[in-house]
């Protein structure tokens, strides 16, 4: 995770993606919850409204047919005809008045309930005869019929003779609520409609296949959900008329609105939002990558330039930041600051090197001048002795000997200065380090009264590829220092005080020189590798710097530990095989 978030690109990408996902997630949640709730509420509202509409229509129809029936019942001809009680008289009159009104079904009965006229010969009892003869009530009743539901409105035919209502008979007209009516209502309201009684669908706009499923669900009034085929409906069941009105009390008007259809819109909305989400995430990826690139590209350039500088030490290496309009300004600033920094470092380095060279040169010049002046003074004094008139043979010999010695010394100084200042060229070859150690100690102790070096040489040391001559020079210089140190402590050479040991390691050889001299003063430790630093009158101060130059040049290392009044230990490590520096 840390690795993932450690990249700026990833961070920007993650941030923008999380932002996009959160924003759209909330939007989706909001839309889901709100729209779903709204759709549900709307569904309920529309169901209730439609139910009211249907009820209203039913009421209107009932009123209309009642009005028609009453109007026709008032026709004097019909009254006169019914009064005769003769069907042949009544039927033409009924046809004349009821025919043009498109009354689906009608029945005229006389005082006793005998049928006097009917819309169809087979219609005998549309429920009208159940009314008491002589009743003046207007009656609306419902009966189940094979076509669906039949509403019958029955009105009395009477003569109002000044308060006495003489009932001549009844006119009953009926109209069907069948599939056609339900379909028409569906066209008007957009809702499915069904009339259910006693677990049977009497009429419906629904396809026949799903009717049984609905009938089973309708037990009492109220809202309920029903799954019919592929569609889920919100349904509202209501009695078609108040209880007690024949079959109507048990007959429910069931109104259904498809929830599936309503939710289809929601599904489209969800799909759209999902699509937008995916697109946004993709876009966020691309954009964040592009934005991050404006930052990371200059940074990468800076990083690679830094790496190059670190690897090569080449301070002239520059970060090349191409000026792009979209690149990050901070990153560009960083790049140019880096360039300025390397420039400055390079300049400081040059100045420091120059100063160093100047100071070294100054010190060297002073030392050389001092070193040269002493022999020159001795030579001049000897020459002055030789210039005298009477010079004894002894005096002359001594003077010449002095001149000779001092010129040798001058020569040695010049040689060592040259050695130190010129770059060393190594000549590599296979050498036995132990042999070099023996030869060096012998050379260092030549003409000395001090006890010889104690050698502790590891016989396992293999031949080493190195420059034997230079190594010998380094060892001699170091051993000479050790000899001078022990001679200073015990001028008569009482005890063996210098040991030289060699040890083999897997990839290198260590050589340790230990003396028991006075040690090095703490304040001098910082300067022991400085050229011409010496504590001896006859020393040139170049021995140790030269030794170090050689060892380091051969790929080894040299370290010094010193304890005042206890001695000094110099530890040299050289690789088994030195390589010629390129």
């Amino acid at each position, binding site marked *: 995770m840390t690795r993932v978030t450690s990249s700026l690109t990833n961070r920007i990408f993650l941030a923008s993606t999380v932002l996009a996902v959160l924003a759209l997630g909330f939007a989706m949640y909001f839309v889901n919850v709100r729209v779903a709730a709204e759709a549900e509420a709307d569904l309920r509202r529309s169901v209730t409204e439609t139910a009211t509409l249907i009820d209203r229509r039913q009421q209107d129809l009932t009123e209309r047919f009642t009005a028609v029936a009453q109007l026709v019942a008032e026709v*004097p001809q019909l009254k006169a005809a019914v009064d005769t009680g003769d069907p042949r008289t009544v039927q033409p009159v009924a046809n004349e008045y009821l025919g043009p009104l498109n009354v689906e079904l009608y029945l005229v009965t006389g005082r006793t309930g005998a049928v006097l006229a009917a819309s169809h010969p087979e219609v005998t009892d549309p429920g009208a005869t159940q009314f008491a003869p002589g009743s003046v009530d207007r009656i609306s009743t419902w009966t189940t019929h094979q076509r669906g539901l039949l509403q019958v409105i029955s009105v009395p035919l009477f003569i109002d003779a*000044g308060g006495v209502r003489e009932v001549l008979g009844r006119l009953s007209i009926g109209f069907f609520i069948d599939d056609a009516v339900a379909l028409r209502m569906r066209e008007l309201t957009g809702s499915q409609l069904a009339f259910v009684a006693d677990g049977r669908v009497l009429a419906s706009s629904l396809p026949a296949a799903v009717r049984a499923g609905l009938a089973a669900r309708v037990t009492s009034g109220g809202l309920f959900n029903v799954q019919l085929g592929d569609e889920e409906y919100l349904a509202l069941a209501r009695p078609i008329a108040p209880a007690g009105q024949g079959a109507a009390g048990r007959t429910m008007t069931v109104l259904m609105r498809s929830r599936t259809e309503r939710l289809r819109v929601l599904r489209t909305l969800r799909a759209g939002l999902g699509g937008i989400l995916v697109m946004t995430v993709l876009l966020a990826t691309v954009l964040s990558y592009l934005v991050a690139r404006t930052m990371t590209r200059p940074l990468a350039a800076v990083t690679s330039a830094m790496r190059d500088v670190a690897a090569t030490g080449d301070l002239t290496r520059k970060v090349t930041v191409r000026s792009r309009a979209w690149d990050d300004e901070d990153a560009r600033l960083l790049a140019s600051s880096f360039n300025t920094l390397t420039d400055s470092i390079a300049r400081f380095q040059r100045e420091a090197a120059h100063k160093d060279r100047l100071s070294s040169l100054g010190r060297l010049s002073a030392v050389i001048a001092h070193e040269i002046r002493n022999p020159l003074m001795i030579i001049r004094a000897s020459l002055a002795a030789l210039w005298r008139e009477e010079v004894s043979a002894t005096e002359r010999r001594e003077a010449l000997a002095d001149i000779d010695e001092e010129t040798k010394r001058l020569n040695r100084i010049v040689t060592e200065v040259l050695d130190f200042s010129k770059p060393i060229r190594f000549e590599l070859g296979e050498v036995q380090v132990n042999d070099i150690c023996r030869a060096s100690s012998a050379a260092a102790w030549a003409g000395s009264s001090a006890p010889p070096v104690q050698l502790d040489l590891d016989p396992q040391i293999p031949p080493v590829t190195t420059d034997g001559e230079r190594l010998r020079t380094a060892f001699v210089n170091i051993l000479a220092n050790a000899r001078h140190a022990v001679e200073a402590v015990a001028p008569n050479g009482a005890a063996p005080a210098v040991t030289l040991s060699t040890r083999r390691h897997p990839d290198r050889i260590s050589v340790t020189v230990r003396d028991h001299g006075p040690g090095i003063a703490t304040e001098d430790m910082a300067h022991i590798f400085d050229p011409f630093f010496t504590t001896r009158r006859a020393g040139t101060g170049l021995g140790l710097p030269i030794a170090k130059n050689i060892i380091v040049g051969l790929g080894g290392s040299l370290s010094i530990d010193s304890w005042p009044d206890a001695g000094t230990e110099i530890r040299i490590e050289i690789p088994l095989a030195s390589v010629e520096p390129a």
Partner: protein
Amino acid sequence: MRLHIPTASCLALALLLTTATSPAQPRLGAIRGRVDVQRVVIPAERRPNPADLGTPPPREIPDLRRAVVYLETAPAAALESRELVRARMDQRNETFLPHVLAIDQGTLVDFPNNDSTYHNVFSLSRTRKFDLGRYARGKSKSVRFERAGVVRIFCDIHSHMSAFVLVFSHPYYAKAEVDGRYRIDNVPPGTYTVSAWHEGEVRETKTVTVPPQGGDVDLDFVVQ
């Protein structure tokens, strides 16, 4: 509606033969009594009519209480030829006056329009089917009723208007007064079936005997 009168007239003819042997110059009696019409009569609001707004004329409700009493079986005297008379049924205040008209067979009935509006008089009754058409105030049309029976009269403009014309083949009938009293005179002695008719139906039938010495016989009816 049941029609009793035509069958009654047929029966009257049959009875005629059986009573033909009665002694000459018998003493005639009379049947009298009261028809108590208890059928609820509620004075109802009149149907509103723009023509007589503000001045609703009172309806002659007592007229509706009047029943007709007649003999189902007529004595031989029924065959006596009687002079033809004219009867009249007025039309006032959207009402036929009288509401019930009892007439002899062959009577010509005038239907004058004494109302402020047009009226029509028609009947679909089998006894006498006719339609006088619509006619204006002051006009009158007539119909002769040849056959015995009940004829119900309507107006095709005013559906609440109706009236009855009872046509008899014999003279033994009487229309009750407003208080219900009636009297059928000149009834030969004998036993008779007497019916009380009211508003389209025979409400009650009774048997009565007129004694040989004649005199008044009381016979009351109650019409429920």
